[in-house]
């Protein structure tokens, strides 16, 4: 096996993290609006969360996310969280798999998702990862997606 093939094979084992820079999310832009885009081939998404980076998020408004149009939670929840908290998405929509906001250290995958037999991750092909909020948030959120590429051309890019 040549060096090129070796590097390609090893590169698929690299855990990738796509980071969307901090933003105050406004309903005019995210009803829904795209956070990330999957391009080039399938990816295996292992985690999706937001970090509250500037101030208390106390708007009282809800958020929900889809990957290629598929819900990543059972329903939207109020995203209120303290500074530096993690808001964790369950990545699937079986009853009990809810978004967990307002925790400074947050299991990934969520405990509810694991109870629902979701332990590996979510495969998805090219498409969008979209956020829907029902009002203007007040803090700055930084979104992260943790994933593995299934193809050397696969990637998740910030939308």
């Amino acid at each position, binding site marked *: 096996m040549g060096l090129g093939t070796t590097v390609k094979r090893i590169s698929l*084992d690299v855990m990738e993290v796509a980071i969307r820079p901090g933003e105050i999310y406004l309903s005019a832009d995210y009803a829904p609006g795209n956070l990330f885009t999957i391009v080039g081939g*399938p990816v*295996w998404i292992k985690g999706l969360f937001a970090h509250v980076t500037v101030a208390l998020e106390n708007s009282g408004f809800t958020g929900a996310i889809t990957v290629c149009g*598929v819900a990543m939670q059972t329903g939207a929840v109020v995203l209120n969280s303290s500074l530096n908290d993690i808001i964790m998405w369950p*990545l699937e929509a079986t009853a009990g798999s809810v978004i967990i906001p307002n925790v400074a250290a947050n299991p990934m995958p969520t405990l509810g998702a694991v109870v629902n*037999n*979701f332990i590996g991750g979510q*495969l*998805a092909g090219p498409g969008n990862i979209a956020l829907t909020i029902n009002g203007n948030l007040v803090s700055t959120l930084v979104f992260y997606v943790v994933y593995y590429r*299934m193809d050397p051309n696969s990637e998740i890019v910030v939308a």
Partner: protein
Amino acid sequence: MGLSNTIKRISLDVMEVVKRPPQVYPIAAAAPIFTIAGGPVWIKGLFFFADEAVDDAGGGTTMIIQICGVPADSAAPTAIATVINGICVWPLITGVVPIPNVLANPMPTLLAVAASCFGQVAGPGDITLAVGAASTVGMCSFYCVYYRMNPNSNIEVV
């Protein structure tokens, strides 16, 4: 420990992905799509990505996959119609159905985990596909995600 040994040990920790290039699959009895060679592998996932709409014409295409002769699904013909960019994931365990036609699809499948299957270890042999009822209309690409259990282990496209 020498460099050669170090590389061998590290290489076993590398998650491997082997992709079978996209193609249309005609009706066929079980035939190899991948071959396990050189030693055992720990298969963590097996799925196809629909490069085109697969069986969107109501042809009722079914698939059955076996790993070294052991069913990796319910062992009964399962309809696999899937929209373009959709994914069909195999459970890797006998008696559990594959999940087709979802744009974002858990791997391992929720039903596989409910059946306590987190992966499948197999030695040299073929991963075979049987296509029934109708040929696929569009092309799909099969992917197999695995770890080698031996420096010589490998899964190759047939």
